[in-house]
């Protein structure tokens, strides 16, 4: 056995010394003109591939990153409604204004609360539902569809739907809380409850997504792991907690990134809920504030500055995920 390995290593050493032979065992039949020039081959590849990536790259660059850049430039000047920007005077006044503006601070706080509470709750609910569905219950596919269905609905529909559910007089939520002896609440107009009510509605809509991601993760875990845990005498709870859930790290990370980006975009839901630029007190988030400043108050530069901060927030969420993927060699 050891002799054969030595033989193989020797053979490799010999072939490396031989210029004509290739490591895959074949031989190069056509001599390469640019074999001596590394840069020559790069530039030829570069030029040759140009038509394939340049148009999409230029279009993306212009319409997406160009627009972000323009937005940044706009945030450095002071444009009110329709007056023309004066780019000779650039400063960070709009950002300073934001940090001194109590409504910005409270919108930022609400955004943070929404982001964390919504994402965590969605993951927990999604995981529980995925585990239940994965235990080969009857009508498994039906349940899966039912849980996923809310995600296919538009925010405009779900916002109106929850407005009815949260109605003080005849909304289902109050009917239930009253039946349980908890009394009735003004879910939307009480600022202490409003954000929680919004988060709950969003969880209803998006936990189905977390379920699908977790379900795929659960399906990828071999049955042997369950069997081994059982043989070693683990209870169901212990089996999931110690053996199964730790293997869902990848699913958790990718689901939470998507959910957090959804949370940043909860604008549509709040806009539809209030039918305008003024979400119920206690639920104003950065994206609703940005649109209100841009299109209702006409403070374009201030809105642009809020937009840039929102963009940085999204980058801050996505970047660690991309780094993680890159380190694992999946990018």
């Amino acid at each position, binding site marked *: 056995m050891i002799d054969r390995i030595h033989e193989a290593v020797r053979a490799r050493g010999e072939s490396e010394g031989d210029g004509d032979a290739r490591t895959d065992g074949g031989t190069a039949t056509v001599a390469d003109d640019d074999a001596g020039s590394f840069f020559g081959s790069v530039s030829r590849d570069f030029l040759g591939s140009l038509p394939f990536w340049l148009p999409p790259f230029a279009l993306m660059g212009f319409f997406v990153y160009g627009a972000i850049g323009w937005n940044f430039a706009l945030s450095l000047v002071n444009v009110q409604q329709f007056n023309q920007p004066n780019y000779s005077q650039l400063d960070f006044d709009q950002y300073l204004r934001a940090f001194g503006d109590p409504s910005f601070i409270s919108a930022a706080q609400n955004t943070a609360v929404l982001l964390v509470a919504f994402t965590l709750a969605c993951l927990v609910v999604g995981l529980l539902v995925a585990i239940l569905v994965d235990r080969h219950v009857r009508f498994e596919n039906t349940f899966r569809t039912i849980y996923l269905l809310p995600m296919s609905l538009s925010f405009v529909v779900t916002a109106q739907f929850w407005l009815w559910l949260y109605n003080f007089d005849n909304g289902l939520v109050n009917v239930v809380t009253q039946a349980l002896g908890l009394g009735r609440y003004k879910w939307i107009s009480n600022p202490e409850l409003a954000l929680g009510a919004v988060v709950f509605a969003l969880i209803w809509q998006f936990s189905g997504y977390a379920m699908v991601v977790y379900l795929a993760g659960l399906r990828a875990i071999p049955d042997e792991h369950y069997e081994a845990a059982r043989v070693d005498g683990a209870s169901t709870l212990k089996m999931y907690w110690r053996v199964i859930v730790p293997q869902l790290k990848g699913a958790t990370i990718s689901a939470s990134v998507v959910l957090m980006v959804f949370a940043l975009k909860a604008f549509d839901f709040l806009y539809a809920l209030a039918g305008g*630029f003024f979400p119920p007190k206690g639920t104003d988030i950065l994206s609703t504030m940005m649109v209100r400043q841009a299109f209702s108050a006409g403070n374009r530069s201030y809105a642009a500055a809020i937009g840039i901060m929102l963009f940085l927030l999204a980058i801050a969420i996505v970047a660690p995920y991309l780094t993680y993927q890159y380190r694992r060699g999946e990018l």
Partner: protein
Amino acid sequence: MSDNDLSRRSYLKGASAAGAASLAGLTGCLGLGGGGGSDPVELLHGWSGGDGASAFEAMHEGFQKEHDVETNVKPIGGSGNTTLDARISTRLGNDDPPSSWAEWPGQNLTQFTSEDLLGDIESDVWEENGMKDAYLEGPKEAAQVGGSYVAVPTNIHRINNLFFNKSVVESAGIDPAGLESPADLVEAAATVEEETDAVGFSHAMSSPWTTLQLWACVFLGEHGESAYDDFISGEGDQDAVQSSLETVAELSAHFNEDAGTVGFQEANQKVIDGGAAFFDQGDWAAQQYISQEGFEFESEWGHVPFPGTDGLYSLNMDSWVYSADGPNPEGTKEWLRYVGTKDAQVRFNTRKGSIPPRSDVSTEEFGPFQTSQIEEFQNSKAQPPSIAHGLAVAPETLTNLKNAVSNEFSNPSMDAAANAAEAFMNAF
């Protein structure tokens, strides 16, 4: 093989050239705008459905019957002109204005005139068809900014209304015509709740403008027109503002409990169903009664001016503005001259439920409710502009006022009234 190589290479060159060309083309598109006289007249408005859509359609038909001008009409729906405003704002921001669009007149127009985006149409439009003589002072003032005419109002909605369900108020023993002040209204609402199962006053608070509008009516009713004028010019009396907010807070004890989650149509439905006695809203609310089978004016529902505002006709209007740099200016002026005629205003207003700003329009074609409103309008001693619809204050002030309602007064109370009054004063 080398043949293949060649053809592939030339194909790639072609592809890259095409890519570059299309990119250049797209970039070029962004710079386009404006246009010459032969372009169609581009009209943007917010009446994408219901009575508004049919009203506009009728007016547009009338225009096309008499004039040979090509038009390009774009209805952009969304409550309270929100979506339309955002679109207009984007178009103007990109130097790509339409020819004319429907806009609330008055102070709302200052956002455009301060950047010279609207043109003067005094000699080309207002001096035609006897418009200057036919329009009352309030609408004429709203059509001007800084002394020059830039818009043509086509319809007037009244804001200071008090609607009521007749059988509910009768069984509570109340005569709405006898309510002389907002305080009387609070008392009447309390009586309704004592005597019947109905809610005293139906209100919608899912967006802030409805409460702002209610406060404006109460303020006008308690402190009169000159205090109102002072407030909209930024010199209001904070105590007066606060006392009216307190009246709203007192009235809120008699609101429907679900006010926070309903819009004005749902709140109005409670009056129709007999679940509520009183309702304050612009006269578009009456259109909801009129379209309800078996719910007739003066037998099932009634109307009085908001208590304390008798003789005042608080205005909300729609108007068509003249864009300084839009396509086909001559055709646009023809459109604006037309919307200022009797024919256009009868066609539009009979369907919209509003009344014509021209005082020389015959009332024959209007229903009994509109006829009584037209009479009250023509006999009104003043026409104070609406705050909640931007006629009275600039857009940024309006945003601040709505913010103040949303942040400080979404749960009306005496404490909230003090904070909200301060925020109202700081809105200017």
